[in-house]
């Protein structure tokens, strides 16, 4: 029998893109509905970073000496990035839940774009991440944080925060597709996050660490990005951090988008 109609092979590039975008919109919408219908999850994903703010601002803060002396302005950029990264980790959990539930099988047997499930997931997670970062900003203001940069600097700083988190959610997408189990994904997701966030300039100046750790803490992407954001929002002329962190963000996307899509195709 001769195959009479192939909806896809006859499509040109532009039509494929527009169908792909429609697929991504559909999946994003589905994931956003999930967030709205599981409000507890949303609430708790906000409480954890708030506790970090309070913990470091009021418990540890007094013992940590920072250049300039105003710890709350030092702390909050670190908190923003930490929040953004932890938010990205939920991508791994969400995807592995979909895998386990069998709905990914349904999606993979549909004539939809092969990257839309991942793109829709990361974009929905980005939306939540923005929400949580805005919440952190509000909490930050309550505990004394203030922007000192120009409007442009502040905006670039906050865009960097969410862009960096978005890049990492693709790392977590790959992780979620590899471990295929929500509980494992939760742990596997946090494993790389902890050393990156705590062995960084997020909470304490890197200078206070042992030399061997400083070597790591100074070059790793989380420190670089926090330093860039911190310089921007405190109004200090931002150094090479900015382009370094931009390159990290881009590099992570360039490596992990194809990797995650490859994993998705070969589940």
């Amino acid at each position, binding site marked *: *029998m*001769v*195959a009479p109609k*192939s*909806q*896809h*092979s006859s499509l040109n590039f532009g039509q494929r893109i527009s*169908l792909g975008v*429609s*697929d991504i919109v*559909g999946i994003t*919408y*589905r994931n956003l*509905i*999930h967030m709205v*219908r*599981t409000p507890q999850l949303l609430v708790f994903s906000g409480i954890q970073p708030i506790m970090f703010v309070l913990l470091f601002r009021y418990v540890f803060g007094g013992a940590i000496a920072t250049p300039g002396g105003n710890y709350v302005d030092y702390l909050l950029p670190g908190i923003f990035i930490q929040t953004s990264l932890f938010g990205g980790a939920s991508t791994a959990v969400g995807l592995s839940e979909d895998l386990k*539930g*069998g*709905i990914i*099988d*349904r*999606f*993979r*047997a*549909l*004539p*939809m774009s092969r990257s*839309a499930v991942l793109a829709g997931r990361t974009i929905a997670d980005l939306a939540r991440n923005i929400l949580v970062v805005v919440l952190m900003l509000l909490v930050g203001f309550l505990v004394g944080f203030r922007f000192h940069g120009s409007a442009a600097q502040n905006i670039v700083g906050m865009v960097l925060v969410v862009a960096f988190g978005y890049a990492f959610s693709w790392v977590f997408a790959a992780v979620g597709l590899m471990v295929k189990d929500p509980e494992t994904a939760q742990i596997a997701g946090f494993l790389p996050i902890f050393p990156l966030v705590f062995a960084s300039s997020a909470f304490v100046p890197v200078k206070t660490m042992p030399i061997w750790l400083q070597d790591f803490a100074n070059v790793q992407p989380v420190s670089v990005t926090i330093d860039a954001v911190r310089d921007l929002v405190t109004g200090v002329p931002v150094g090479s951090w900015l382009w370094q962190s931009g390159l990290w963000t881009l590099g992570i996307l360039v490596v992990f988008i194809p990797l995650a899509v490859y994993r998705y195709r070969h*589940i």
Partner: protein
Amino acid sequence: MAEAVIEVDGIEKSYKTNRALAGVSLRVERATVLGLLGPNGAGKTTLVRILSTLLKPDAGRATVAGYDVVEDAEAIRSIIGLAGQYAAVDELLTGRENLELVGRLYHLSRIERRNRAEEVLERFSLTNAGDRPVKTYSGGMRRRLDLGASLVGRPEVLILDEPTTGLDPRTRIELWQYIEALVRDGTTLLLTTQYLEEADRLAHRIAVIDGGKVIAEGTGDELKTQLGGAVLEVVVADSRKLKEAARWLERLGEGRIRLDETRRLVTVGTEGGARVVVEAGQLLVEAGIEIDDIGVRRPSLDDVFLSLTGHAAGDGSETEENPKQGGTRHGRA
């Protein structure tokens, strides 16, 4: 021969050490139902995953509506509907949202997908539940929605992987009625099942699969005939005499002989008729073996399965008199 919509030719697939499919060939003709019958681990799901382009075969060739499952995977996805072993619907979305999402991913227009969702809800008696989140649905409603979701794109070919596994008998019969309606509409359907009654009731042709191979194929009646026209069943009074009784009864049989120690039952495929019963009775009385019960009946598909594979359709560990009633025992929803 009628036009084949699904053609499978020598498909092989192995996972690490496990050979799931060891050269499977079969065909499904247009507007017919093929029941793929086999126990857990027989390779049914692996074949379904290959035909629905979720998995690539190691060797062999398979086409759906003329499209190759490896080379034209994208084309196949737009003409098949797949409903899986567990209901792959979104718990947090409503029934309607689920269907509209699938419609969107089939690239139906907004109006089309809205209408289609409405139609499907109606067809599967879910109109009233359509705007409730799926997590509030019963198991049967979920399966119906899952089945409905596989129809949203008006597929040429429908693939159902164990559509009633884990359902209670009443819900199973209900779902069968929906599937039968699809069959009447002329859907080309590949259905996998571990339940003999399900294959017998829904499928035009049945392929029995075990250990990654098709070990028999035909209509339900053809398969039953393979065993002989009838089945002679003898229950002996003393289980220690079971083997001896079997040796005597072997003379009457054409097909394979089976023993069930726990129920002291010997089953033999025979030509049937009263003569067989009389002869069997005589043989055993002369041998001094007491009988509790003796009779002849039409073979069930379970007899076929047992005689072909040496184990019951469920999982091989048990022999059950009437698996038609015992369908829920391997439930794993």
